[in-house]
């Protein structure tokens, strides 16, 4: 069940939304947090009143969707959204108001903007799009859930083009709480970002990059993960060395956790790019990796900050990610020859 990636857009801590090429240089964030580089929203959401009423994460989601859809020039037949953390900022704002104001005289706006489907719903309202619309909120599977749904809609003939959007934002409190939980040990950086993709069964003018398959594996044991990865490669008649690059979900500079070590070991002859030290980590970060894979394949060039020894050609990329040791996922991306 493969689909073409017709268009993509990303708001992340490294690149600008309007950038078409990956930068030649990128700095690691100072400290343990990195913030997404927000665009000039006027460029994407013309109505000042609409902009003023939106939260930061809503604006990021809508701006990325508008920029992504400008590449296809067509209404999507489905809007499928993914988030792990949700609209944290408004959730906290409302909760703080409840506690500090003794449940009295509350402004309902942060409540209505705290719901997880806010970004997908706002995107639909701005686009005036009444098609299929849903939101997935399953930790490190949220984006993968959304991708599979889009692939099924396309296969069902219900969607010619599906918009998949992911968003996650962090706040001071969420950073602190996860710090207390030990999330940011071993070099991990707290990140955030919004990614959008237009997927279709038919290739478009934007190129012939295909998302061939998505695999989700639940559970903390290494051996079943190793076996499922082997079966996944077998299903696609691939040997590890047929892959040009592994985008590894390792949080730090080196392979870190046992899962990344195992996966990087399977692909030991393949260049490994560890992107999280630059872009940070969050539940839907595999969407950032997919966006990055599309860019790398289109450019046929990997910047030095990402990879010391870039491969000669970049036609096939495996993305591996895991969230909190339980949600493991693999995405297989390739350029059609």
């Amino acid at each position, binding site marked *: 069940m493969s689909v073409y990636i017709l268009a993509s857009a990303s708001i992340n801590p490294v690149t600008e939304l309007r950038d078409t090429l990956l930068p030649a240089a990128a700095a690691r964030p100072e400290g343990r947090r990195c913030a997404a580089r927000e665009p000039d929203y006027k460029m994407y959401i013309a109505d000042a009143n609409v902009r003023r009423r939106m939260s930061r994460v809503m604006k990021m989601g809508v701006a990325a969707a508008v920029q992504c859809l400008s590449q296809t020039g067509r209404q999507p037949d489905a809007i499928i959204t993914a988030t792990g953390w949700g609209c944290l900022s408004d959730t906290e704002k409302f909760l703080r108001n409840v506690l500090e104001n003794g449940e009295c005289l509350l402004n309902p706006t942060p409540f209505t903007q705290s719901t*997880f489907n806010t970004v997908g719903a706002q995107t*639909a309202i701005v686009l005036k799009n009444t098609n299929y619309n849903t939101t997935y909120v399953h*930790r490190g599977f949220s984006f993968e*859930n959304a991708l599979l749904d889009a692939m099924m809609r396309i296969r069902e003939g219900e969607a010619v083009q599906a918009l998949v959007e992911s968003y996650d934002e962090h706040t001071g409190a969420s950073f602190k709480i996860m710090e207390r939980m030990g999330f940011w040990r071993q070099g991990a950086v707290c990140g955030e970002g919004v990614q959008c993709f237009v997927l279709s069964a038919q290739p478009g003018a934007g190129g012939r990059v295909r998302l061939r398959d998505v695999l989700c594996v639940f559970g903390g044991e290494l051996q079943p993960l190793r076996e499922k990865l082997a079966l996944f490669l077998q299903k696609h008649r691939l040997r590890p060395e047929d892959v040009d690059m592994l985008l590894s979900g390792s949080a730090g500079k080196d392979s870190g956790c046992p899962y990344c070590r195992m996966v990087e070991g399977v692909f030991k002859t393949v260049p490994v790019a560890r992107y999280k030290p630059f872009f940070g980590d969050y539940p839907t970060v595999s969407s950032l990796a997919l966006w990055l894979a599309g860019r790398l394949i289109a450019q046929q060039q990997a910047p030095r900050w990402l990879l010391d020894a870039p491969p000669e050609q970049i036609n096939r990329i495996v993305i591996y990610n895991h969230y909190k040791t339980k949600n493991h996922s693999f995405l297989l991306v390739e350029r059609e020859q």
Partner: protein
Amino acid sequence: MEIIVSGVGIVSGIGFGAAETLAAMAGRRAGLGGLTLFDSVYRDVFPVAEVKAGNRVLKQRLGLPEGKTFSRTALLGLLAAVEAVDDARLPLRKGLRVGFVSGTTVGGMDRSEGFYGSFLLHPGGGRLRDVAVHDCADSTEEMAVRIGATGYMATVSTACSSGANAIILGARLIRHNVVDCVVAGGVDALCKFTLNGFASLKILDDAPCRPLDESRAGLNLGEGAGYVVLERKSADSPGAYCRLAGYANVCEAFHQTASSPEGHGPYEAMRQALASAGMVAEAVDYINFHGTGTRNNDLAEGNAVKRLFAKRVPFLSSTKAFTGHTLGAAGGIEAVLSALAIKYGLLYPNLNYTRPVAEHGLPPVTGFRQGVEINTVLSNSFGFGGNDSSLLFSKV
């Protein structure tokens, strides 16, 4: 491929399990009462439909260790999910790839809001285990592991249509051969966050809610869970409740928290659900309304029904005066009620009804009725953000 419902599980303010739920329906016993689960200034202001047991008792029912932290959401979900898989005899049927899809609006907020109060006083305050269960997927993973449904899992959050959209995804996962069988539905626990959210929107009624009534003045919140077991119809599938004959998900793209008065979104959800099943409106015997009791919803939904069912309006009622509005669970709970209505030939009363809504005048069923031939039921779930979904169940 025909998708059947082979098991159901339900818990709400009117009881634990399908039998207690139907007994309450027959006895017209609503689940509404005073708030006891947490302190709130709204304690004696707004009636709510609590599941009638504290977390300690819920853990005992489930055989869970008292010392381990679970969100109430996970506990309510576990009760219904375990009932559903036992009902479909899944534990006895080996070799099935079982998936789990759950809808929820606030996940483990019932615990994290307690944490956050202490955290606000001091950044080192609050017990981490209370906030570790905050996210929406925590309850999903607890349930999936307990019922052995880790073949594929997903959590859906589209406000009040979460449970319905979980069921739609479940059916599609089977059609696409991702898994053989899916447990799908929704769950939500009452919490201060939600209560204050709906209070701030001024759409809570301080009296028992009156869906489809001219005097309706808002909704009552409830909590609970409802899951169905979905699988493809085959020779060896056990006695099925009904088929999931059709479904549709649309977005009204009108307003963040309101429906258009004409009910364009509800109309399209119902129309497309019928079309997906290849059925005409006249085939529907009963509509389980979203029917929250707010001015806006019952106007929009009723107008949409009147337009789509212009030739003949089916039996209709909202069951939310029994269960309260259980938000992410509503689509799951009402799917279970729809399946039971078909299997046992039941119609559920719309409580607290006296006068028709002026604009559409649709009269709901007011008495509990059994022995009625119910072949097809339409179940509506409409959420904030215009996420409108309809499920169509029909006799096997």
